């Protein structure tokens, strides 16, 4: 569910860049405050790879395409690291596969990073007490939140000639098409965290 190039006005794209840069600066500052950020790099990179590759198995459903987003997974597993990871993943997708967009990189960054941070917060709050439930909620919730941000951007950004009613119908179809995805992502995050808890608790966000 990437926002492609050319759809929204250039002012919005620039604003997106500004917002993502600010978020990245904040996240990098948080990350630098960690005891040994270098030691985390291989894990972060491997998850970035997963994020990057997930969008390659895409089914085009014009004017967008449905594929795994994994924002919730990134947030729960990586915390603040998810912001640089997602931005790098999005950049590579845009440059190497023309997937997403180079001008909309900032906006896409917001669509993916904010839900990831939401999932991270959720996990921080209650992950220890109800791991399965929270994992499910974080995975699904991130998809829903991303959908909401995406819809908001498209509503604001589409040219005025487009009939508002028709626009809403199109968006609803698009949102409904993504509901199974939200379910699937919840299950994925839950399964992964379960296996992790059993065999490699060291990699869990909460030790």
């Amino acid at each position, binding site marked *: 569910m990437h926002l492609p190039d050319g759809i929204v006005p250039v002012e919005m794209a620039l604003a997106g860049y500004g917002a993502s840069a600010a978020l990245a600066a904040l996240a990098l500052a948080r990350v630098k405050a960690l005891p040994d950020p270098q030691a985390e790099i291989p894990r972060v990179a491997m998850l970035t790879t997963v994020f990057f590759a997930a969008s390659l198995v895409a089914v085009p459903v014009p004017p967008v395409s449905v594929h795994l987003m994994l924002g919730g997974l990134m947030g729960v597993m990586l915390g603040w690291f998810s912001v640089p990871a997602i931005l790098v993943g999005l950049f590579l997708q845009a440059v190497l596969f023309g997937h997403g967009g180079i001008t909309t990189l900032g906006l896409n960054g917001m669509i993916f990073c904010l839900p990831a941070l939401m999932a991270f917060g959720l996990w921080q709050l209650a992950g220890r007490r109800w791991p399965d439930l929270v994992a499910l909620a974080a995975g699904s919730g991130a998809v829903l939140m991303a959908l909401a941000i995406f819809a908001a951007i498209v509503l604001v950004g589409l040219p005025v000639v487009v009939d508002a009613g028709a626009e809403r119908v199109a968006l609803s179809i698009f949102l409904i098409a993504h509901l199974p995805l939200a379910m699937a992502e919840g299950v994925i995050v839950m399964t992964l965290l379960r*296996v992790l808890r*059993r*065999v*490699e608790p060291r990699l869990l966000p909460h030790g």
Partner: protein
Amino acid sequence: MNVLALHKLSVGHPGHPPVLSGLSMQMRAGEHVGLVGPNGAGKTSLFHTIAAVLPAQAGSAEVRGRAVRAGHFDTDIALVFQQAEDQLFCPTLFEDVAFGPRNMGLPEPEVQARVAQALAACGLTGLEDRPVHHLSGGEKRRACIAGALVMQPALMLLDEPSAALDLRNRRRLIALLAGMDQALLIASHDLELVLELCPRVVLIDEGRICADGPARAVLGDTALMAAHGQEVPHSLTPHDGTGHRHVRSFP
């Protein structure tokens, strides 16, 4: 009936020239055969072709009379990979070894019994709940062998089974394999092990079978072995126990 029959088989990787070509050989049920040859001779590639992982480039391979088709896997064959990590994929050791029997649809008590037996045979009892990626090199190797054993296949392909094993476990493995009545094809650079386990040895090099015969004749043939970058095993050369021996020079 032959458990394995190769007819003019060519082995290779897609998009590359064949590694081995025109291989023909048979193995009888229960026969133990050693496969030796220098690095890069094509032992692993041959195993992958027999196990239907790699398509044959020409000719055919038959297991128990059925032609092998790449991608159609057969639980009559078990392959122990050269790289142990390629083979272990479940979270814990127990689950990994139990995976095969469970898929064969065996009832759970039988699965448990078979797994316990395979783990004991490989000296892994007590490590059941270990995550597989937390095992030491030798433990991983034995886990792979246990995973193959537990399937009770008609033909086992063992690629470097003794690599990474300590001597006690190597000896235990030899005892275990020697007592098996299934057919074994063992690729190894550990010629002592081949000598102890396999009455018959096949030597491959330069893309073909260079020798196929009684182990003692093939492995003891100094000229043949030297020509293919091998050495006659220690136990076939007399020496005096001082640690000094006749070092041959190689190109």
